[in-house]
């Protein structure tokens, strides 16, 4: 099994005719993702390889039954694209785009919440349920099916962990990059609950970092979960008040430091690894 996306996910790609859109659409299709449609306003009627392109998501959904969207359009247009996906009835929206103004995300966040739509991102690598479906830009070769759920605010660290797990013969149920922005649609807490409800996820690896309180929010609910969680927090050496690459990775108060987050996890019995290697070992040992 898996969470959020699986074999039944039918994907529409918004921005499919762009350079990035084409590249990742092909990767996803190659991986076996059911990419049923693309959308580029004004290019309706064309095809991207075998994928039909529509002017609107509504049309794409009507014609192809798409139920999830990947948004890969420039920041100035990305939130409108998300709202379009929600309006058209997509139940999962994966927003890859980086550099979206935070106040635009406020509207998208609350619109998704009200509509019961799972929004992943922005500024994220996407989601993959190995062997079933990939929506995003993750390098797919490293993933294999298995019992470990992975959730992370960092793309590359996800790959590191997954690579480590796979090399040690341990596969993944679903891997999610929740994104590096201050305002993200799906947080650690949401994902931990989903993983806990998935019978095939036997352990969860969580990769947090400085900034915000999402790690603390997650720690708060961990005592109610049965699936073991192993954590790593990046940014212990980050100087305060400086954005570390991710818009959301900034030490701006007590709770936003790596130490505070590690402390929060340890306080609820979650082992916190010092290195990614250690994190992999912990997860491998537990399954």
């Amino acid at each position, binding site marked *: 099994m898996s969470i959020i996306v699986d074999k039944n996910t039918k994907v529409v790609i918004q921005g499919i005719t762009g350079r990035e859109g084409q590249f990742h659409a092909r990767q996803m299709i190659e991986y076996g993702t059911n990419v049923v449609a693309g959308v580029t306003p004004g290019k309706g009627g064309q095809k991207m390889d075998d994928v039909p392109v529509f002017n609107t998501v509504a049309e794409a959904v009507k014609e192809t039954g798409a139920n999830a969207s990947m948004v890969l359009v420039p*920041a*100035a247009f990305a939130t409108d694209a998300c709202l379009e996906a929600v309006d058209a009835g997509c139940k999962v929206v994966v927003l890859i785009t980086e*550099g*979206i*103004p*935070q*106040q635009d*995300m*406020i*509207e998208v*966040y*609350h619109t998704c919440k009200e509509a019961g739509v799972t929004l992943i991102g922005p500024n994220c*690598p996407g989601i993959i349920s190995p062997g079933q479906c990939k929506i995003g*830009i*993750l*390098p797919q070769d*490293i993933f294999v099916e298995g019992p470990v759920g992975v959730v*992370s*605010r*960092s*793309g*590359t*660290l996800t*790959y*590191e962990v997954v*690579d480590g797990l796979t090399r040690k013969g341990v596969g993944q149920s679903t891997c999610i990059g929740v994104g*590096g922005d*201050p*305002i993200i649609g799906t947080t650690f807490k949401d994902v931990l609950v989903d993983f806990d409800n998935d019978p095939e996820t036997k352990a969860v690896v969580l*990769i947090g*970092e*400085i*900034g*915000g*309180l*999402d790690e603390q*929010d997650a720690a708060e609910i961990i005592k109610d979960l049965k699936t073991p969680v192993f954590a*790593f927090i*990046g*940014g*212990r*050496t*980050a*100087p305060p008040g*400086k*954005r*570390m*690459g*991710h*818009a*959301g*990775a900034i030490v701006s108060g007590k709770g936003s430091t*790596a130490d505070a987050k590690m402390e929060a996890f340890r306080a609820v019995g979650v082992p916190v690894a*010092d*290195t*990614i*290697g250690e994190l992999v070992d912990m997860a491998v040992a537990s399954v």
Partner: protein
Amino acid sequence: MKIQEHHARDIFQKYGIPVPDAEVATTPDEARELADKFGCPVIIKAQVLVGGRGKAGGVKLAKDSDEAFEKASQILGMDLKGLIVEKVLVAPAVDIDKEYYIGITLDRDRKQHVVIVSSAGGVNIEEVAEKTPEKIGKIWIDPAYGLHSFELRKMLFGAGFEPKVAIKAAGILKRLFTAVTHMDMSLVEINPLVLTTDGQVLAIDAKINFDDSGIYRNPELKVLKESEDTDPIEIEAHARGLTYVRLTDGNVGIIGNGAGLVMATMDEVNRAGRGIAKPANFLDIGGGAQAELVKNSLEVVLSDPNVKSVLINVFGGITRCDEVAKGLLEAIEGIELPVPVVVRLAGTNWEEGKKILEGSRFTPVESLEEATEKIVGWMTEKSSV
């Protein structure tokens, strides 16, 4: 991004938020002229992007224009937490009856803006919230409903604002929220907002942070943006479009792809380095980096005289390791490599990358553990020399 007080003042004026008279001086003579113009006493305030200017001696009162000259002389050129003061703001001193705090910020957790006010201003707002929570008012702004004057008045009266101040502060906050949405501010604080003895309500000091992702649609901010960097290497790095943060007291240059990986690499160098090896910077080449960017990155990191060795850690996804390797070779073409550089490549095309680096002056390794071992070895050598 942050902006200096006097720029914040300009923005406030544009949005109809009352501020006292004030002008910028860059020389003691100008400060004296302004003191004459406004009439004394005047306040002389250092224009630098650091908190706690007052305590650090960056804010002074001058009783007459000679004193204005003298105090401005003291402040201009002063080193405030590493920043040299180049400008002061000269403002006529106002007679303050009472101080308040008002602010609007983006609440990451609730994903909405929050208005925060306190009838005890001029002090640390977090302390007020802890010790006298009844003096604090908050409104989380529902994006669909917006922000209304009546809610603000209710909150302000509730937090103990004097009636005439409450009514004016409600108007100020309404206009402030317009500014927040127009200009993509992630934080704006007026501290203190004051009631003067002659009944005016004025924003005396302000702090504004802007959401960097919104700068593309606020062209007037692009101009101010440049002035934020003060470290020469950061200025150079940002001019080259790099995501670079310089750390004090570090000796190991760090380059990687992905913010998380770079932070983790820094942390690991620090941990394994046991005080001998310390990260000197954060540099994220991002996803899908081309050779040119890698070249730029290495050049910038090497330009830091504190850097005694460099660790490059790349996990290829969209980023191809062979591209990274090519960029590295280009970067050192024709130049001497002043310090040892260890390169760990993994993921997409790592083998090709490794092959490209073979026989070069870079030291290739296969894991971060191996890389930090090398680094610690080198730094130990250096420190024992």
